[in-house]
């Protein structure tokens, strides 16, 4: 209820001062980490104190666990994740030729399970899928986000950008209205950040749990009272794709901690 009230207030204020939405200049981009209080930053910095690491460690066990009718583990094909998975999260979402569209890391893991392990998909936002995703993404920690530049991917990036820019929902807000035009301000005591997903999956203090980028996007979409999308839907993957291209060049921080 409180959130609705403050979003409404923000909408009123923003409708009053409408400015043409423009992306943040490259050199003014800041990770969500820089908006946090020093005490919260310390939680992310220390691997022995970062709750996200609990999921990364779970993921490390799952990596070696045999699954599916084929009785194979991830490590059977990919051996050591810290060599084979380096740089993978940095270029996801990526284009899948068979499906003819982009897929995110969670979907890639489930496709691997279906195609190579003959195993059933793991549910979105389940502990196991978050653990595996966090483990794989953590192998790219410190590496620059490097979106795939294949021609086939670009129309989907454009669709993601359109979604980010368009006004929608009861509050008639576009992502850009907050995250491009007002990222240096606060909403109900919380910093409005720049929408640069450098640390996903994150341990969010609000959730007191690990969560994916899509969980965060769905929260935001609910917040602006717009029609929401299911986990894994093409619209959310395109939005993820655009957001990662927005953060191109910034280092991966997984497992990130956010308020």
């Amino acid at each position, binding site marked *: 209820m409180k959130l609705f009230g403050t979003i409404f207030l923000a909408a009123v204020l923003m409708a009053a001062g409408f400015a043409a939405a423009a992306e943040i200049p490259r050199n003014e981009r800041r990770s969500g980490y820089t908006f946090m*209080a020093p005490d*919260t930053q310390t*939680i992310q910095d220390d691997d022995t104190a970062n709750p996200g690491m609990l999921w990364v460690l779970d993921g490390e066990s799952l990596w070696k666990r045999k699954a599916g009718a084929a009785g194979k583990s991830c490590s059977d094909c990919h051996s050591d994740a810290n060599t084979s998975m380096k740089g993978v999260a940095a270029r996801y979402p990526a284009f899948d030729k068979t499906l003819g569209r982009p897929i995110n890391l969670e979907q890639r893991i489930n496709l691997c399970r279906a195609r190579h392990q003959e195993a059933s998909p793991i549910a979105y936002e389940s502990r196991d899928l978050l653990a595996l995703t966090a483990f794989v993404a953590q192998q790219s920690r410190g590496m620059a986000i490097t979106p795939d530049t294949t021609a086939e991917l670009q129309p989907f990036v454009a669709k993601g950008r359109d979604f980010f820019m368009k006004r929608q929902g009861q509050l008639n807000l576009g992502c850009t209205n907050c995250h491009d035009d007002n990222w240096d301000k606060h909403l109900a*005591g*919380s910093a409005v950040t720049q929408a640069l997903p450098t640390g996903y999956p994150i341990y969010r203090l*609000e959730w007191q749990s690990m969560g994916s980028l899509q969980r965060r996007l769905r929260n935001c979409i609910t917040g602006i009272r717009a029609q929401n999308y299911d986990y894994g839907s093409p619209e959310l993957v395109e939005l993820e794709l655009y957001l990662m291209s927005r953060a191109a060049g910034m280092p991966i921080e997984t497992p990130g901690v956010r308020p």
Partner: protein
Amino acid sequence: MRKSEGSTRRQFLGIAGTAAAIGTVPVVSLRPVAATPETMTAAIRNVIGSAAVRIGKVKLDVPPLVENGNTVPMTITVSSPNTAEDHVKSIHVFNEKNPQPNIGNFYLGPQAGRGQISTRIRLADSQKITAIARMSDDSLWSATADVVVTLAACTEEVI
């Protein structure tokens, strides 16, 4: 920051203790209503008895403005020689506005070497937190901290 003198605090705790003895102030229990400064005082009495508590020796490190009430880093440091003869026996932490007044009790001893603990707590509202340390000679020392919480804990519903 309001700092009460030792005697005023003793008086206050004495009154609260009497009230608790009479039974007008409820002791620690899971109640649907929020704790109040009175229930915090009663909870303190419950844990440390009727001895006097002095202000000092305890450093309560909590961010003055909390990012999210669900996870608030807290460090308590008690200055002490930390020897077999003179050390920290236990540290007790209380709050005044969560649904329940207790936060945690931590038991140390001569082997600790340093009277310091860290943990992460939940705060349901802007409020005062109190930490009380019991030393090896059973003297009690305390510190309080005022914390501003904009995003509260204990109120989020299950999704």
